[in-house]
């Protein structure tokens, strides 16, 4: 058995030779299990980017990219083991799963090996904060999304707001960031309600909001399926006419199939494929490679992840992990499929363009793609 392990380790080493002209990216992502819904499409986008770069002769025409893939089965302990194996194999960058738990479990490995690590789609801004110098996020942070939607609401002339959030997860507390930004801009908070994830009945919350006189100009939440549709239906049934603002969690077909109730809902998400945009080009290239359109925005975000690494390697002029980390932390305006990405001045959390989408006639309408104002982005919340 020892021989088998040894042999397969040697095989793995040969499959991914580490040389001066090759950049080896190690992925310890959730290809199976509960997080596969995010990490599998992300990996497709990453591979598309790698194929494009290698077809063009490599990064800067010189450095080819090789992938060393590990499946962590959505398990934190496996992530920590896989990250160590990748570190031992001498990879230059490690890609971690799109959830805080497994990503955090690998912190010890990446910081002691001094290899930069990027989580595929984790959006909690606390991740890079806890993770230290070598931990980066790739997805627009919860606080960034909230800053964008609050600014848009204020500019639209909405003066009063109500938030509905769930303390159950970091993601569902996004409205607390919204509250902070909205108040900073001068808006007034009329109140807030909490729900639990998976709550069946939102009528109590809906009646409370409907009973306000006057009703708030807007209701903001980061609830997602199945909570968001029930909440929205309850609000409208109770007679709440306020503008409803959501987050990228509701960027799914369900939201566009709610009929009249769903109309005019506005939410933030990572990108929108307007004509001639990089995202439209990405979608086309994706369909060509895989035979079908990307199933979610995660694929484009995965493409962006590789573009960020490419940019960092160009600046660093080397595949040395520490140099790549330093270059990555200083990147500005990298062109990705979803827009421009900046790490400079942040704590490892990217500043990305966020797209605001409105549900119009059961389809998506672009409201705007503002670059978030760095001064407005609230500090990550630890609680």
């Amino acid at each position, binding site marked *: 058995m020892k021989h088998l*392990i040894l042999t*397969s380790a040697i095989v793995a080493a040969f499959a991914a030779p580490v040389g001066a002209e090759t950049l080896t990216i190690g992925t310890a992502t959730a290809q199976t299990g509960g997080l596969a819904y995010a990490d599998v499409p992300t990996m497709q986008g990453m591979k598309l980017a790698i194929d494009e770069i290698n077809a063009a002769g490599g990064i800067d025409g010189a450095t080819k990219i090789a992938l060393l893939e590990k499946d962590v089965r959505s398990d934190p302990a496996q992530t920590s*083991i896989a990250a*160590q194996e990748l570190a031992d194999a001498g990879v230059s960058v490690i890609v971690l799963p799109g959830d*805080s738990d497994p990503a955090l479990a690998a912190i010890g490995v990446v910081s002691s090996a001094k290899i930069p690590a990027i989580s595929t789609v984790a959006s909690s801004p606390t991740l890079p904060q806890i993770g230290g110098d070598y931990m980066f996020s790739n997805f627009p942070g919860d606080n960034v999304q909230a800053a964008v939607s609050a600014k848009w609401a204020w500019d639209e002339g909405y003066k009063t707001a109500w938030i509905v959030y769930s*303390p159950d997860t*970091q993601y569902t507390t996004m409205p607390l960031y919204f509250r902070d930004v909205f108040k900073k801009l001068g808006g007034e908070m009329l109140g807030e309600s909490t729900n639990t994830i998976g709550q069946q009945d939102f009528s109590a919350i809906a009646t409370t909001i409907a009973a306000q006189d006057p009703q708030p100009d807007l209701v903001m939440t980061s609830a997602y399926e199945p909570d968001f549709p029930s909440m929205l239906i309850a609000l409208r049934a109770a007679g709440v006419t306020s503008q409803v603002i959501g987050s990228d969690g509701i960027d799914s077909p369900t939201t566009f199939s709610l009929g009249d109730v769903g109309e005019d809902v506005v939410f933030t998400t990572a990108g929108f494929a307007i004509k001639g945009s990089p995202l439209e080009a990405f979608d086309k290239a994706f369909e060509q490679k895989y035979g079908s359109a990307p199933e979610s925005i995660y694929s484009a975000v995965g493409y962006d992840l590789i573009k960020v690494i490419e940019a960092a390697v160009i600046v660093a002029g080397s595949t040395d992990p520490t140099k790549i980390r330093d270059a990555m932390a200083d990147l500005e305006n990298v062109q990705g499929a979803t827009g421009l990405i900046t790490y400079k001045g942040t704590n490892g959390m990217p500043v990305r363009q966020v797209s605001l989408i409105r549900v119009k006639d059961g389809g998506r309408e672009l409201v705007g793609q503002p670059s978030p104002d760095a001064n407005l982005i609230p500090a990550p919340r630890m*609680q």
Partner: protein
Amino acid sequence: MLTSSRRQLLASGGMIIMLSVIAVFVATWFGPATERMLTVFFISLTAVVGIGVYSGNSGILSFGHVAFMGIGAYASSLLTVPAALKGATLPGLPTWLAAVELTLIPATLIAMVFTAVVALAVGAAISKLEGSAATIATLGLLIIVHGVIIGWRDVTRGAQSFFGVPRVTDLVTAAAFCVVALFLARLYRDSSSGLRLRAGRENAIAAGAVGVRIRWERLISFVLSAAIMALAGAMMAHFLGAFSPKKFYFNDTFLLLAMLIVGGMSTVTGAITGAVVITLVTEVLRRLESGFSIGVFDVPPIFGTAQIGIGLIILLAMFRKVDGLAGLKEWEERVLPRSTLLAPAALPPVGARDVLSGKGLTRQFGGLTAVDDVSIQILPGQIVGLIGPNGSGKTTLLNMLSGILTPTEGQILHGGRDLTGLSSPDIADQGIARTFQNIRLFANLTVYQNVLVAALSTHRGKDAVARAQTALDWLDVMKHAAADAGTLSYGDQRRVEIARALACQPQVLFLDEPAAGMNREETDALMEILRRLSADLGISVLLVDHDLELINQLSDRIMVLNEGRMIAQGSPKEIRRNKAVIEAYLGTGRENEN
């Protein structure tokens, strides 16, 4: 008290330490990734053996033990996370808890005690349930604890990551804690409590009849196993540094149970085998699924094979080895069997002093009255024969007298004490022992263990070893002491059952068809033994059998039941002439035909 030979325990302990040390050295030689893999292996093995302490010994599969792992993880982490970080991440924490900052070992010990207390409360309820009802209840436990951890946000951060836990579980720590857990599990298995629980697993009714309080033993093992799970949880928390409630839910439950079932639930050898096999197979598949090249061929990554592999191993194990790869015995029990030559120790006879009497005993099952107003008296040292056609209520009467059934009406007195409504272990403790019509031995325990359990569970276990040996000697089954009871011939099994009852040092012995299935010679030998029990030891005997020759020759007095009623009693001579008895056995002739 430990019930297995010191030689076996030393062999087991030595092997555990040796394997652990070798594993640690090999892993260190391979490098940090293998060290991490082995650390996780040791934590998993600790958890597997923790589940095994309860499920293996009691025979009740538990889906809920990972909940205790979660409680241990959260409890220990709350004590080790730096106070400053707790202030930032858990502002709602009670001040006394927020200020605590312990190192791993004290925090782990406190977490184990806390988890054990929780398990005591939960176990008190679950130990009342049997078989699959208990299994489903443990599933409820897993779901409830998961819900509580998510809901108790001030202390647990809810469903969010609980982070900032010092990463102090290294390979050596994990190995050392795992060795401790394996020792605990191994010693418990052969402690008197563990042996009693295993007897209960083999046959609950028989275990009760020799004085085993099965719920109490289940509770002890439940609490111990919960503490071991807490140890595994604390190690896991301090290995990962960050975790959330979903780490301690169905995924890990499945993986750990797979290890336990594949290896074999009832032994420490099985737990180790299962953990090793599953880990090796997943490690190999995991390396292959990332893609590899054979010569010029490149095999692309295919993920998901590890889970399929585990599934296939379970299927294979279930088809080929239902009791798991290691079976029902520890390796050292196979390699170093207990010496069969035990020096028989003679114990002075106790002798019956008290009259056992049942007054107006009635037992109804729904509308059927199985026993109807029967009074019975057994005088000290007497052999009383109880006969009657099939279905006449003999076994029901015996079950009432031995506490297995509670009489619907009537009273049972022994000396001055009222035994009505006492449980069968209580009755056993009053000096009343029995055998069963369908042999109820603890089939997978050795003959010696069968008898020892009875001795340990009565008279507070006083002189248990000597009593067990005397009983084996009396029934002439000492030569089979090391054999599994289930492997003996029918006649020998009957004798072992009587020896087991005798080891309870009873005043009264109930024998339900002891000669069934024996040939004439065996029956005669048995008759001789029974006569001596009564004559030499002064034990009262209530004998049920269809062999009228046996009954006639042995009994001082005979009672006859028919359709639940006592139709006659008297000396063998009187009974032979009794008209009612003849009618009951042979029919009434022409009168009934009309």
